[in-house]
């Protein structure tokens, strides 16, 4: 058992992720000092904002829900070798579709209506991602540029739809309230925590099983690690890119749909709040493993709420979290730093007489 745990740590390189997070926190600490604050006070405010009470902890778990989905969406794309920066846009169209399906489909029992609304979000999100995958396959254009452009297009299309055809009564730009038969249950009153958390955990488990134990998952990973070798082995790489991007977009759409059906109850333009972009950091820090992604989604949920807490009680802007995210992504994907650091430390030990050479 002990060996298996050690093995897990080694294989998933959890230490690199942890060290990266600590390094990033230290650098942000330096930024906080330069801003004229005590990092202890700031991080204290963050801890309190993330875990300080039942309410705050529920908020953290609730924020984790869309983050798990965007992290998994990124993971799916990365597994097939695609860099999907379009998660934000896919989440947007997915949440809007769920809001429409949740409102305008009537007369169904909850057991059918809710899954149907979730499915609407997933399918629309997936189709939106397919556009980028198809263009990439057909033209060989860098998918990063395509998905970014599609983010803007999605943002403006949905913004148009919610401002005119689907504008709810009143001054607020949002859609009408969904039917009660399409809503998910809030678990702790007045918080973001809804039953979608089970859906998020289930999705993580399913993706883990699929990638590890199915032929589809195996071939998908083969395309991701070396597409020309996979082609030689008779795998149609383009087909797998399409499939993985559809799944990626569907996960993003599902995350957005969950937010509409579980928390907001309607679509409102600012609701995705950059969750899609967080997915990049989350999957990277989770080393593109499903379980790792789940854990880092929890951490980022805590960071986001912590940042809100810090924003509230100090005058350090919550945007500091973006600095942190950028640094985490950079350090996690550059294990070379830690290798270089180890080399320097070792060299120093060797130079110092009677220190460390005994082994």
């Amino acid at each position: 058992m002990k060996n298996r745990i050690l093995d897990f740590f080694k294989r998933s390189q959890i230490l690199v992720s942890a060290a990266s997070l600590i390094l990033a926190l230290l650098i942000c600490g330096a930024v906080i000092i330069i801003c004229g604050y005590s990092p202890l006070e700031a991080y204290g405010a963050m801890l309190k904002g993330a875990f300080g009470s039942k309410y705050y902890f529920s908020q953290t778990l609730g924020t984790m829900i869309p983050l798990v989905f965007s992290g998994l969406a990124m993971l799916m794309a990365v597994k097939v070798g695609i860099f999907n920066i379009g998660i934000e846009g896919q989440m947007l169209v997915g949440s809007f579709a769920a809001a429409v399906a949740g409102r305008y489909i009537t007369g169904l029992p909850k057991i059918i209506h809710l899954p149907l609304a979730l499915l609407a979000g997933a399918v629309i999100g997936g189709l939106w991602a397919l556009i980028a995958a198809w263009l990439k396959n057909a033209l060989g254009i860098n998918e990063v540029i395509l998905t970014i452009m599609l983010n803007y297009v999605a943002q403006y299309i949905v913004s148009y739809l919610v401002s005119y055809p689907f504008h709810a009564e009143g001054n607020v730009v949002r859609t009408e309230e969904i039917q009660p038969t399409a809503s998910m249950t809030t678990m702790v009153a007045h918080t973001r925590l809804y039953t979608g958390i089970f859906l998020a955990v289930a999705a993580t488990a399913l993706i883990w099983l699929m990638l590890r134990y199915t032929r589809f998952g195996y071939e998908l990973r083969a395309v991701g690690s070396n597409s020309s070798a996979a082609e030689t082995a008779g795998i149609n790489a383009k087909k797998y890119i399409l499939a993985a991007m559809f799944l990626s977009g569907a996960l993003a759409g599902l995350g957005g749909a969950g937010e509409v059906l579980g928390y907001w109850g309607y679509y409102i333009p600012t609701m995705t709040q950059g969750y899609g972009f967080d997915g990049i950091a989350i999957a990277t820090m989770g080393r593109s493993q499903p379980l790792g992604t789940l854990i880092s989604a929890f951490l980022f949920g805590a960071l986001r709420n912590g940042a809100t807490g810090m924003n509230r009680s100090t005058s350090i802007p919550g945007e500091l979290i973006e600095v942190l995210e950028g640094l985490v992504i950079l350090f996690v994907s550059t294990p070379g730093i830690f290798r270089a650091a180890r080399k320097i430390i070792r060299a120093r030990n060797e130079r110092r007489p009677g220190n460390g050479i005994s082994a």
Partner: protein
Amino acid sequence: MEFLLKLLAGAIRVTIPIAYAALAGMIAERAGVVNMGLEGMMLFGAFFSVVGSYVSGSAWVGLLFAMAAGAVTGLLMAVFAIGFKCEHMITGVAVNMFASGMTVVLLQMIWGTRGKSSTVDGLGVVSIPVINRIPVIKDLIGSVSPLFYLLILCTALLWLVLYKTPAGLRVRVVGDNPFMAGSMGVNVYKIQYICMMVSGALAGMGGAYLSIGDIYMFSKDMVAGRGYIALSMVILGGWKPVPVAVCGLVYGIAQSLQFRIQSVSIPSQLVQMLPYAVTIIVLFFAKKGAEAPAMEGVHYYQKGE
């Protein structure tokens, strides 16, 4: 005719920052590095040009600040992407996130606000007497930011260096085949580091146009995706200096059209979508004549590494 002239004049102004960033992306890719961090470099350029102008009172010092900030960002990116062999795209995305957060933190530190800086000295406009005597040209670039003329200079210089000097030849070989370049005795890393710093400085100038060249202040996330649009212009322009700089006009015209037809009864959101949709469509129909540098985005290892 009047409408067309105004449209084109507007388009030229919108294109200036994109063209700088597109040149920046081109020079990096020519040396084999995919610079996904243009967005963040521009943001730093926009921010630090305002800082420079604020502390010195002169916008030209601000422009130098922007170039320095961009070059430092480029150097740091090179350390990660080339020195530590981090995936180029991930390095860029990380830089963009970092810049987006850091500029707001610094904004709070210097001006005590989280949205906009105070107004600073700007670069103003220049009007050259000779140009003011030519009828159509006068309407287009009669009074235009000095950064427009600097852009022409930069484009010409890049063309000259890339195609007419031994250094340029080395850059092109490094992008196409770093291993051959290495075996010929070219210092691949040195060239890539220098190109990334030049790239950063150019992107910084593009960012500076947005702040001290246009509205004379910094506002949060003011680059708004222009760095990514510039990257698509690199593809459209086929990795050649002059076409890359001019291709930005595709986006510029769409954007300028957007300003001009906003008063018509078409919903503003659909009009705002235009530049992005046009970029995708143009990429779709772009002739695939030009080839990307063969080894862009691929890590190069020196002998014995």
